[in-house]
């Protein structure tokens, strides 16, 4: 059972993008005028391995309904190995969130290269839709930060 608090629910999506691949991929999707929902707001990080689980939880606390992390494809990391660490950390974190009963589709990790503007747009489109279906984040929210 999904709870939809309002019909016009617009999810807040925080997207962490690595500077070298995914942020550039997002730029490319802009250059090519490939639209994706305004719900997605990007935070630039040097590498996906900079994303601390604290940031992800913080986003949910502060009202995000979905968090997505994007990095270079495995093997293509600008810093050679960063995204491999990301992959392990985020897999374990997501598994833990799932274990605690947080909806799986609120979190995602995607590899988007600087050339994949179209992929970036479609990934964001899809993710926003998935989160929209889930409804507002209630299981991992901080009531003090709930929007009135």
């Amino acid at each position, binding site marked *: 059972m999904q709870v939809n608090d309002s019909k016009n629910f617009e999810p807040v999506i925080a997207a962490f993008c690595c500077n070298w691949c995914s942020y550039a991929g997002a730029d490319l999707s802009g250059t090519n005028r490939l*639209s994706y929902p*305004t719900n997605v707001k990007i*935070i630039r990080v*040097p590498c996906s391995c*900079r994303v601390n*689980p604290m*940031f992800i939880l913080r986003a949910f606390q502060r009202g995000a309904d979905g968090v997505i992390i994007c990095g270079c494809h495995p093997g293509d990391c600008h810093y050679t190995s960063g995204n491999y660490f990301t992959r392990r950390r985020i897999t374990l974190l997501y598994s833990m969130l799932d274990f605690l009963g947080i909806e799986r589709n609120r979190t995602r990790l995607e590899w988007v290269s600087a050339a994949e503007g179209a992929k970036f747009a479609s990934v964001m489109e899809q993710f926003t839709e998935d989160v929209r279906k889930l409804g507002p984040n209630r299981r991992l929210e901080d009531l003090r930060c709930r929007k009135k």
Partner: protein
Amino acid sequence: MNRIGVFVCHCGTNIASTVDVKAVAEALSHERGVVISQDYQYMCSESGQNLVKNAIKEHNLTGVVICSCSPRMHENTFRKACSEAGLNPYLVEIANIREQCSWIHKDITTATEKAVILGRTAIAKVTLNTPLTSMESPVVKRALVIGGGIAGIQSALDIAEAGFEVDIVEKEPTIGGKMAQIDKTFPTLDCAACILTPKMVEASQNENINIYSFSEVSDVKGFVGNFTVKIKRKARYVDETKCTGCGLCTEKCPMKKVPNEFNAGLDNRTAIYIPFAQAVPKIATIDPNYCMMLKNGKCGVCSKVCTAGAVDYKQKDEFIEKKYGAIVVATGYNPISPEKFDEYAYSQCPDVVTSLELERLMNAAGPNGGTLLRPSDKKHPEKIVFIQCVGSRCDDDRGKPYCSKICCMYTAKHAMLIREKYPDTEVYVFYIDVRTPGKNFDEFYRRAVEQYNVHYIKGMVGKVTPKANGKIEVQGSDMLADEQLRIDADLVVLAMAIEPDKSARPLATMLTTQMDTNDFFTEAHPKLRPVESATAGIFLSGVCQGPKDIPETVAQASAAAAKAIGLLCKNSITCNPCVAHSDELMCNGCSACEKVCPYGAITYENKEFRMPDRTVAVRRVASVNPAVCQGCGACTVACPSGAMDLNGFSNSQIMAEVDAICK
């Protein structure tokens, strides 16, 4: 107190057509800390930049937010502009309202809303920005080349030509490496020695090059531009400064039963030896494992015959320490041992040889003076079978998963040379695939098949059995004809896979560079930075990075040299200030950060701390070398206490951005 200036760019109509820039500027002007918020047609234009510069001066700004195109586009432009106006360039943040807003959204209302949020996010971050200064680190104008094969020699020569001092460290008594052992080279069939030895001589004569032969790197400290390397000069029991290389000692030495490595163990040398005639440096070396004087104190012949008085039985290993700005790794390769491949009967039959052994058998300076004879009975082989991919493209742990790349070509070379010199000899080659990409390579292979009638058989050899009559039965399958073959050969040649030299892994640890699972050094980027390691100042030359033939090796050696020269040309390196730093008071010294650092930028030291109870405690704490750190941030997440943080992308900055976005 923050005094932030916000500058919203129209980018002509690029932004302004879908984002109400005036509304964005107005909305952001109410944010805390914002003292001026303006919009302008083209913020990146000179007049736009002047607008920013004037505002900085007029309002004494402590931070600047530019709402414009991607920071990948103009971040540097605005940083420079701010810097010119006296504001630290790292107090600038860009809100990307073009690529990530106006260009992808169509509805002005929602696009404007989003632009405001992106602007707020940048404001939230910039309030936490701190001024950063790029550090300058001096460069020692000397390079170290580790390995004196063709790769090392080429890199050294190129660097020396550019006017920089180079040291070559070679673990063998002579430079030259594998190429010195090779007879002819493909696809031109010119003599390897003829093209290599002049280079060796050139290296020894170049006044910028200093060769440490019979030496090994034992420790590396420091970082790009400033490495301190400890070199172990192994005792060769001959004074290098006195030995003239006359070779008299090697003639007189009574211990003549030492397997000769240079000839792949196919013949013997003396205990005091010079590896080969054109060795560089041409200095004798005593092999302590065989020298009777060193083993039991009886003999001393070499010392007696040496007119230069160069022999010194008391010599000890020596260590020297030198500073280098750049290091080129050229540690090369070795063929793997055929021992694990029992089915090919290498250990049972002397007439089953490896390709490198065949090179020596055919070489004029080899054990047979250049006449191809079977090792067992010194007879001329009439039927020779080559077996390809022994240990290459292998899916079990006896061999290597990769293609060794050079075997197809050198086998074609061998087959052709044999057919040329001994037309009565039949040559068979069992192969999985013949891979001949390269200039004039496929033509070369086709010549072997078409012109020299070498029998290429697509298939694997199942078993090699030495027979009583001296023949060797090779059982294999011909996959194209779909039949089993039995060939009674006189000589079987195994194209062994090649692997990185065993010294590479400990070296990689010392250099804090990365290696793949096969012990090949990992390049910084497989396509765009193929000759640099991920560790700044360490360059990769030759097969240590992956299987290569000679032309490729030389090309890469020169490329590595070019990169090293590029570094050595600088007087100092400007470091990216957005690097990690550790708060010593919080650091546990647990080593988690060090383990994830791809650059080896983190070291530990024991430091004294004054504790709250006024006692002094010694704690192990991490310190980041800002000249080596590239700012990826992997360590910041590995650190459980949060002692490690990243300049420019600090925990608090990113969290402030998260807060602003999720508001």
